[in-house]
């Protein structure tokens, strides 16, 4: 159960048109340029020109490719890349509720329309609303139409009806890791709960229904749990501290607000395991909102939901969070969306929240690294109160 296995993904041959490749190169040029000061740029350009001349391949002069490589001068092994995310779709079966299905389809269309395509898509958990086989199957079916490969993460709504049975059948193990372009990715099941159901004689449906209520106080706190922490420790054992780590967890891996389980009970223990790495980024679902935090070397970003937005917690909001607009109830899909993450060569992440019907919000790694001094995201006009 806790072995490192090949991550579940939807494989398809990766064929890119000339046009796509051109725009990809152009894009990484501009991204590369943003990172270079003038002197480095001259050096890099000269080097690139010389390299191109030496290789005798003249068409490289008209390509953006040399600069692309130059963009990774800090660490030649790594290149910037982008991955997309979709999260918290909370699907019921079609007969019960077709609205949430339409909203997930909208997110799939958004991601499929990304040009260039992201390297992969992270699904952030809570694919189903009540953990039923039919709901999970439906979700798997919809996600198959994504063009890019998909990495799945589990949420509590997928889990507590059959304790992950169907989810595992469809998508494989709930804890796994993989490497991509020099970054070590870890997908962590963080929504285990201590048994509150046996003593109460609850049926699986009652257990699921209890967990499905965000403000239901009968349930326990989310936790990664000792076996998963041991797995994580082992997984990271041989990873050098200079390797950037990106962790996907459904619950935020810190303690924000216990009554809504915006919370991971053993967060400190998990953070301690991640402490020795230079750069760690955690992307989490569950909170359905723009949410930003930094604890030491770890940067945290929330993900948007496609189903419904959550309000901000009345207490415990991290100081670095610039809230998204209070969703307008008269605007059916306000506060919802999907998004992407632009990964720098150093492994830090600029997080993009693509809010439907609004301008996208970008929370840059530099904003977090500078403790809010630089690149502050735009402050919304309609704050929560």
């Amino acid at each position: 159960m806790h072995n490192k296995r090949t991550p579940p993904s939807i494989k398809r041959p990766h064929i890119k048109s000339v046009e796509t490749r051109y725009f990809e190169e152009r894009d990484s040029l501009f991204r590369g340029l943003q990172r270079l000061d003038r002197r480095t740029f001259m050096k890099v350009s000269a080097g690139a020109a010389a390299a191109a001349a030496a290789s005798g391949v003249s068409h490289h002069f008209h390509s953006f490719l040399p600069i692309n490589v130059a963009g990774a001068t800090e660490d030649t092994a790594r290149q910037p890349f982008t991955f997309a995310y979709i999260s918290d779709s909370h699907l019921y079966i079609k007969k019960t509720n077709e609205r949430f299905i339409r909203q997930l389809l909208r997110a799939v269309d958004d991601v499929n329309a990304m040009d260039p395509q992201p390297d992969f898509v992270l699904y952030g958990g809570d694919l189903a609303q009540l953990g039923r086989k039919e709901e999970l199957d439906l979700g798997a079916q919809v996600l198959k139409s994504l063009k890019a490969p998909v990495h799945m993460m589990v949420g509590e709504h997928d889990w507590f009806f059959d304790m992950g049975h169907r989810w595992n059948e469809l998508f494989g193990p709930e804890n796994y890791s993989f490497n991509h372009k020099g970054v070590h990715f870890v997908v962590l099941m963080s929504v285990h709960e201590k048994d509150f159901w046996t003593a109460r004689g609850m049926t699986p449906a009652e257990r699921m229904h209890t967990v499905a209520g965000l403000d239901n106080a009968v349930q326990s706190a989310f936790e990664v749990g000792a076996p998963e922490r041991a797995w994580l420790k082992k997984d990271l054992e041989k990873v050098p501290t200079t390797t950037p780590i990106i962790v996907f967890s459904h619950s935020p891996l810190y303690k924000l607000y216990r009554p809504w389980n915006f919370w991971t009970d053993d967060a400190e223990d998990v953070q301690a395991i991640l402490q020795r790495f230079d750069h760690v980024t955690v992307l989490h679902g569950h909170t359905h909102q723009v949410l930003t935090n930094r604890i030491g070397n770890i940067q945290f970003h929330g993900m948007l939901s496609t189903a419904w937005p959550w309000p901000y917690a009345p207490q415990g909001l991290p100081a670095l969070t610039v809230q998204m607009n209070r969703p307008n109830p008269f605007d059916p899909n306000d506060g919802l969306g999907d998004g992407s993450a632009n990964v720098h060569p150093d492994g830090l992440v600029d997080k993009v929240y693509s809010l439907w019907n609004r301008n996208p919000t970008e929370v840059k790694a530099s904003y977090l690294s500078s403790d809010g001094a630089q690149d502050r995201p735009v402050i919304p006009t309609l704050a929560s109160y």
Partner: protein
Amino acid sequence: MKNTPWLALALVTLPLVTLAAPALADGPSSSANPPATLSGSKVVKLCDNKTTVEVSNDTPKTPDEGKKIADALMAQWESKHPDNKWVAEEVEAHQVVPPEDNVKLVGTGQSSTYGAVSAQDVKVWNTETYKEAVYGSSVFHSGDELGSEIAVSCDMCHPRAANTHPETYPKFQPQLGRVALLRDMINWCIEHPVRGKVLAPDDPKMRALESYILAQRKGVPLDYGKR
């Protein structure tokens, strides 16, 4: 459905002892009294006018025996109403802010009894008020109670009624084309995101929803018109 148990419970808890005592007395039976059975024992009826126990005529007329009759009636009633603990169950699952306790008023002023406010008065005010808010919580958290066609309930966007800001009504809502009260927004949400049937302004569920939402914002100053 939720209404019946309160009513019965309220009636049962207070007059039970007084009911049991005259039933045991040998005085002339009025037309309201339950009839004697053929065997000569008496039928004692609970104040719900349905639940009964038979008491033999030679039962000693002691408080202990009276208590036994009362317990037998209550046990029957409880088995017929398995959800009679709904207040405790709802509060365990969903925190509901309790109302002002008013204990400082005990012994002062006038109450409905034309004497000083008693501890009993304060308790009744508190229990009844809280119950209304708790009933509201159970509607708020249930797509079925709200009549949702798509299994959506209020708490999905408003856990613990967050972001409902009832203190800001009335305010002009251009989308509704008029000044909206809290109940107008509740009905808007029931009709659109929840996809249920709108409630009449005095519908018990509407009154309960308003009670719950306002209860959760206890202590927040009124600020009508705020956006």
